[in-house]
């Protein structure tokens, strides 16, 4: 049943081409129905799946001579992310209700992207996973290049090339692993069960990890993210930050770390004080957290603030993965979900509620418009999203970051202190952006916008409410996710990781 999340999205995308010309409203409704159907399937599976262990959804031979199977399966981690995809898909469409230009194609590419994302999260066969992972690239290129704004063609091409370079690295690692393991099967379980030599793992792990981490915004390979997010139309920014970056983080955990657990083991000697790949990536993640926050602090463009905040928050995920303890990794998965929701909300406020009304994202120009009076709903939504993003208790971000911090405290006490600094800067940049954009000093000459801003429409309100409610729900009752994430992490698939260096 869960497999239908993929098929239904692809069918929806195909149906877009059959719609008559110029029927934007029909396209919107069709897209929304498709997304809701996908979400409903995901939610049903989530509700039925109480144990978190790996359950096979579909398994048929695909290319028997190479041992490749069409094998879909889901465990607690995949289900969490599938649920996230469902929520983001629906709200993304709600926030694209104003797309009129080539709407059919827009929603066609959109659903294609969503379907491929579902596919990545559901794939158990690594060949299949890679196929879906690459299908993602093309629709996101077009979504940005056709419907984007600032420097869209540059941003789109940069994004596509970074993704492709990352997936090329992954491909090299996967092919090497497949051949070394005797080229009998591409199934995740079989490959993870094969004991690769420590030397091979030391080489393959960083290759595959970085390949995926490029898409997760690992510093210093993060530069596609701010430009891509800024250039993208609102729905595409939401998808990019909300789910596509999670594909990278998911790949790091599911593929790189599961297949090559010994790649995380100490090298046996120290280079610049670093003793293993684990140290290297943990340091890079922390640099990402602080660097992203610092750069967000000085941006003039509202959307760039959010773009860099994404880099910062993705650093938390990668750090959580590198802690290698249960609380840290579970925290990373919860953070994937939480950041997906919050980044979606932030981009929706900035891109849809503010930018499509004011046609500017310059904080200095937005300030005098008195937006807290003109569009109060946007101001409220942003304040809530900002609070959640800072990590205030009661929101999902708090739970996730706390878990990651505890994990980091066990693993790297020094780095945990640095992360604390990153969190403080996080508060500052959100505060600064909030104040400059919505609550600028009204004693200065107030310049009303040259045209009355249209009120916030119903789809926007609905989308914002869904996202906020989800974040609060997880913030108040994180066990909802943890109940299936923790058993998934204790499953035999992560045995190698546990035996290797699990603490």
């Amino acid at each position, binding site marked *: 049943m869960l497999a239908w999340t993929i098929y239904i999205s692809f069918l929806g995308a195909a149906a877009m081409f059959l719609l008559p010309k110029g029927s934007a409203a029909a396209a919107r409704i069709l897209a929304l129905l498709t997304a809701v159907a996908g979400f409903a399937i995901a939610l049903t599976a989530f509700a039925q799946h109480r144990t978190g262990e790996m359950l096979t959804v579909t398994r048929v031979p*695909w*290319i*028997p*001579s*190479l041992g490749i199977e069409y094998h879909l399966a889901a465990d607690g981690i995949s289900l969490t992310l599938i649920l996230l995809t469902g929520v983001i898909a629906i709200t993304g469409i709600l926030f694209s209700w104003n797309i009129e230009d080539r709407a059919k194609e827009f929603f066609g590419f959109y659903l294609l992207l969503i379907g491929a994302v579902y596919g990545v999260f559901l794939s158990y066969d690594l*060949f299949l996973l*890679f*196929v879906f992972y*690459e*299908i993602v*690239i*093309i629709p996101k*290129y*077009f979504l940005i*290049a*056709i419907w984007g704004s600032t420097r869209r*063609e540059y941003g789109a*091409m940069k994004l*596509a*090339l970074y993704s*492709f*370079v990352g997936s*090329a690295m992954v*491909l*090299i690692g996967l*092919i*090497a692993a*497949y*051949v*070394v393991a005797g*080229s009998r099967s591409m199934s995740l379980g079989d490959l993870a069960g094969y004991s690769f030599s420590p030397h091979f793992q030391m080489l393959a792990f960083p290759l595959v990890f970085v390949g995926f981490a490029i898409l997760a915004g690992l510093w210093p390979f993060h530069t596609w993210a701010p430009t891509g997010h800024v250039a993208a139309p609102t729905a595409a920014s939401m998808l990019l930050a909300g789910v596509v970056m999670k594909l990278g983080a998911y790949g790091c955990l599911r593929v790189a770390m599961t297949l090559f657990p010994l790649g995380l083991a100490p090298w046996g000697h120290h280079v610049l004080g670093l003793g293993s790949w684990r140290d290297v990536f943990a340091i890079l993640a922390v640099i990402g957290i602080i660097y992203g926050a610092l750069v967000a602090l000085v941006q003039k463009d509202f959307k760039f603030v959010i773009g860099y905040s994404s880099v910062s928050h993705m650093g938390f995920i990668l750090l959580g993965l590198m802690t290698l303890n249960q609380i840290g990794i579970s925290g990373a998965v919860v953070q994937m979900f939480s950041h997906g929701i919050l980044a979606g909300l932030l981009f929706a406020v900035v891109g849809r509620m503010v930018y499509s009304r004011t046609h500017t994202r310059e904080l200095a120009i937005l300030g005098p418009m008195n937006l807290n009076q003109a569009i109060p709903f946007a101001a409220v939504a942003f304040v809530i999203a900002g609070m959640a993003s800072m990590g205030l208790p009661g929101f999902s971000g708090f739970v996730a970051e706390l878990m990651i911090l505890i994990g980091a405290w066990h693993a790297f006490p020094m780095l945990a202190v640095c992360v604390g600094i990153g969190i403080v800067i996080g508060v500052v940049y959100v505060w600064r952006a909030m104040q400059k954009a919505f609550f600028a000093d009204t004693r200065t000459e107030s310049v009303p916008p040259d045209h009355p801003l249209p009120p916030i429409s119903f789809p926007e309100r609905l989308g914002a409410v869904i996202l906020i409610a989800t974040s609060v729900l997880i913030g108040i009752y994180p066990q909802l996710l943890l109940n299936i994430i923790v058993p998934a992490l204790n499953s035999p698939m992560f045995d190698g990781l546990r035996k290797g260096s699990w603490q």
Partner: protein
Amino acid sequence: MNAINYAQLLQLAMPQVIVVATALIVMAIDLLALKQSATRIRFSVAASLASIGCIAAIISILSAPAPANILDGMLIANPLTHLVQIALLVLTIFTLLLSVDSKFTEHVGEFVLLILVATAGMMFLVGSQDLLVIFISLELLSLSLYILAAFNKRSLQSWEAALKYFLFGGMSAAFLLFGFSLLYGLSNSTSLVNIAAAVHGPALNPLLVIAIVTTAIGLGFKVAAAPFHFWAPDVYQGAPAPSAAFIASGSKVASFFILFQLVAVGFAGAEGTAALPHFVRGWVPVIALMSALSMLLGNLVAIAQTSLRRLIAYSAIAHAGYMLLAIVAHSQQSLAALLYYVITYALGTIGTFAVIGIVEEQKGSDQLSSFDGLGRQAPILSFCLSIFILSLAGIPPLAGFFGKFLLFVTVLKSTPGSVGLIWLVVLAIAMSAVSLYYYLRVLKRMYVTPPVAESTYIQSPALSQALVLILAGTVILFGCAPHLLLRGIQAAIEASGL
């Protein structure tokens, strides 16, 4: 030596005989009966007759007894050669049907005749393990292709391309013949199997080294591998679209197959290795070098192209580089990978040229700017073109992706216990990441850039459009279900025991 059994010879060469006879019949009918008719009618009649001939040849191949081998490999027939010959005939049919709507010539009979003769040449080429027959059929193929490249008499570019092709081709044929003569001197035989027995030894004979290099030059030219690629951009750009499609597809399939046979059978025992960290002299390092050069040069130069045909030409050089990897690996599985790759590549290339031909017809140029906004002017054509281009770029789930995947896997597998060839695979994958840039630029032209003149729908001829759709469907089908083709190839290789 046994007396030649002419009946068996005729039986073995029956498919080729059918193709040549069809060629003569088509020309006769065209010149005698249809001289006064419109070009399109003449093309329709000629192409359909020729296609029927090709289908008859396919049937005759399917019903032929296999395996057979006469005169020490002068003519051989086994499931593998049959498979390649059928693939060639199918590609020929596509080319013929595509030319129906073209307007570049009035010499319809001659055009179709040349395509069929070239096809016969290719069929002899793949069905032989004898130096003499290989050389003669290669020349039969090449000479026909030179004329086909020059067939648009109104276009100076076409002349120039053909002249360049001819001059380079003549030179490479000389190299090839020189290499063959050395091989004959070394082994006193023209049969590949005997040559392999003679050259087999621990130390490489210097003469053999020369023979290897000159052979590589001669066939490197045919497959357009760097640094023997100079003809390709001009021919791809100047030749009429059907000729270019034919040169880029059928001739590639045949040349790669025979290159594989020649080095893997003829030079067995003189392989050497290109695996790091130690190179060993032999033919493998030569091919590996050509492959690395082609991948680098093809992909990097393609970035700078402004004409789609030239871009496809450089991308063809790059793809020749990938395919040479299969020859470096020279295992049974890599032959399967090579055939899968080259056949699906050929199908996609024919489709690409078909679309280029239609657009050129309407807009008068193949510059990338002519493709601005094509997505709105001709939605179906541009959808198909994007399928072909994304397949070239190796995006799943299209055939190009699986071809690359299989190729890289077999290359790594060919050196059991070590991953010494990984440097070539890394280079190939890195270069295919580069290639996405220029392929995406083409897609960007079609879907992102607005058209110059406000939407005029492009009228595409129904037959060409149907063919393009079929080709795009095949590319998707073989990508989603690679086993359909791969199973046949593997079974044929298994049965022929190459």
